[in-house]
């Protein structure tokens, strides 16, 4: 007898899809209320799945369609899926609440319900990517995520959003094409679409020594596809425009969770289909490790040379994606736990930086330029402190989540031979130094009085004075929740790491 909680992964996807259709015909305010409610329900579903699988001590599967596996379409949930779904739904809700202030400015009222439709589609796609056990369902929801993420970017009709969206779409479509080709090759080689059965076929072929080259090529193609989509160096070129042009809620969601959805699918495929002890994985992981190392350094170098806050934060995302791929490239349970821990820390830190950055920019004449941002923390203390917490976490200051994340990367590196350990630790040190240079410099800048307060006092703000406190409530909720999570994970990283170790052991 199946427990009722086992339906929750399916309900999560279907609820979001239903809400997406509903929002397209509702008025803006009603659509917003429905979307916020759905995001809250998603958190409930995800936490329920997490608690249930933790108590169960194993994963469960959920077959769909008229046939049993291997011919069914299947969802699969364990502790790791529960953790990721909780993080995705929580960040989705907090980014939405934190970005409400700017959604009203950036998006016309008659299109705001469509924004809610797109957010629900993002939610559905992320939940499906988290729970699906079927590689082709993975492809379909990858494309839904690509289209809806393009939508939340381009719905802000100003500046160069259309150009940013084009660049984003082109690279994402290249990634999707590679992923579909890789999935088709897996189907051609093994005759299956469910990850476990593909995995069994791959293991048998590897044991017999057949199809060694096609298998390696297929894993390479899928890894390349998902690496392009998640913005691994040198495919990070779409990031600054995309994150810089979107409305802050969209930037937060794009950088915080959408890129992580792609990476989580890759991790599932590497674990469940390829097998992390296999020779095929071994040949692919070195390339991911090298690209990750380059990403860590070059992302930070580009960030240092930026003159605009959003672009700097965007390039720092490129560096963070590099960190995550270093974890995947290091391999082993410790490497994957480090990568997933890094994903979670990045998911809760980047939205804080984007939303607080938007508020700082607002009190600086709606300018992202550093010269205008000087002293902005004095003009809005709440956003200043929030940005400082996020920046310090990214830098890796002890007692904040970013430090724990870097510590786990270092621990994962120590499990490897001398040369790999040395290179990864050196890259971590250099990248941390560069992070400190540009983040600490920015924090000092926004806290240094500029004497320009009078100039910006004359700038017309988006809202009337009377409306400001109400509009600030959403920001305050987002700042407090993200800040609290960052500090909690800084002091208590072990509890999450234990859950991740349990989850990763259930993944295969």
């Amino acid at each position, binding site marked *: 007898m199946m427990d009722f909680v086992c339906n929750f992964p399916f309900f999560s996807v279907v609820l979001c899809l239903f809400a997406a259709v509903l929002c397209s015909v509702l008025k803006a305010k009603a659509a917003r209320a429905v979307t916020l409610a759905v995001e809250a329900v998603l958190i409930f579903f995800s936490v329920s799945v997490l608690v249930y699988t933790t108590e169960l001590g194993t994963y469960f599967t959920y077959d769909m369609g008229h046939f049993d596996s291997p011919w069914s379409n299947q969802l699969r949930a364990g502790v790791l899926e529960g953790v990721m779904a909780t993080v995705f739904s929580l960040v989705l809700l907090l980014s939405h609440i934190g970005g409400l202030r700017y959604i009203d400015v950036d998006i016309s009222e008659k299109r705001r319900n469509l924004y809610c439709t797109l957010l629900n589609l993002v939610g559905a796609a992320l939940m499906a990517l988290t729970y699906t056990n079927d590689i082709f369902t993975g492809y379909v929801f990858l*494309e839904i995520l690509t289209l809806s993420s393009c939508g939340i970017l381009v719905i802000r009709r100003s500046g160069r959003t259309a150009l940013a969206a*084009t660049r984003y779409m082109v690279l994402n*479509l290249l990634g999707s*094409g590679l992923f*579909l080709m890789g999935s088709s090759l897996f*189907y*051609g080689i093994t005759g299956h679409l469910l990850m476990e059965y593909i995995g069994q076929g791959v293991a048998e072929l590897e044991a017999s020594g057949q199809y060694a080259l096609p298998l390696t090529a297929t894993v390479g193609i899928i890894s390349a596809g998902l690496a392009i989509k998640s913005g691994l160096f040198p495919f990070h070129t779409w990031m600054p425009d995309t994150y810089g042009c979107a409305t802050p809620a969209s930037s937060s969601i794009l950088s915080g969770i959408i890129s992580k959805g792609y990476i989580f699918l890759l991790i599932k495929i590497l674990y469940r289909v390829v097998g992390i002890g296999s020779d095929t994985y071994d040949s692919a992981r070195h390339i991911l490790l090298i690209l990750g190392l380059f990403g860590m350094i070059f992302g930070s170098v580009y960030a240092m040379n930026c003159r605009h806050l959003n672009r700097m934060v965007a390039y720092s995302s490129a560096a963070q994606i590099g960190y995550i791929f270093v974890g995947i490239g290091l391999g082993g349970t410790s490497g994957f736990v480090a990568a997933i821990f890094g994903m979670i820390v990045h998911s809760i830190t980047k939205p804080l930086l984007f939303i607080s950055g938007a508020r700082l920019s607002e009190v600086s004449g709606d300018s992202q330029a550093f010269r205008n941002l000087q002293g902005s923390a004095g003009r809005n203390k709440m956003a200043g402190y929030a940005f400082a917490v996020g920046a310090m976490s990214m830098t890796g200051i002890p007692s904040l989540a970013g430090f724990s994340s870097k510590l786990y990367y270092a621990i994962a590196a120590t499990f490897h031979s001398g040369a790999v350990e040395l290179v990864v630790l050196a890259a971590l040190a250099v990248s941390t130094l560069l992070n400190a240079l540009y983040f600490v410099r920015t924090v000092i800048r926004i806290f240094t009085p500029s004497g320009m307060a009078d100039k910006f006092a004359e700038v017309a703000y988006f809202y009337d004075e009377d409306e400001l406190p109400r509009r600030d409530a959403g920001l305050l909720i987002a700042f407090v929740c993200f800040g609290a999570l960052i500090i909690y994970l800084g002091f208590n990283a072990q509890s999450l790491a234990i859950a991740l170790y349990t989850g990763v052991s259930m993944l295969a």
Partner: protein
Amino acid sequence: MEALLMLEKILANYEEAIALILFCIGFMMLLFGRNMIRKLIGMNIMDTGIYLFLASLGYIAGRKPPIIEGGNTDPTAYINPVPSALVLTGIVVSVSVTAVMLSLAVRLYEKYHTLNLDEIYSAARERHEHR
């Protein structure tokens, strides 16, 4: 000798070989094309290459399409239906993506009066568009 063996294998699987060539052509057009419409065409060629690959995987010579006719439910009478279903789903995805890309092309043309991406980038730079 090895080259001959390889050629023989390619000829025996000519559908898959053509599919891969189409995929590569489309991929390159999407990556390197400087015109939006050219990129769109490239994307469709790339997807078509994959659909041809999938269709050739499911095809079994001498068998019928997977649509039950005259109550004949014997699976040996039909080709493998799974790749056909995948292709149909893939086509729906392609159409949606093409529609979104075309709408982006229209917006770019309205704003910059060209579909050449190099010209669009330089126009955006000249206007100092950052956000």
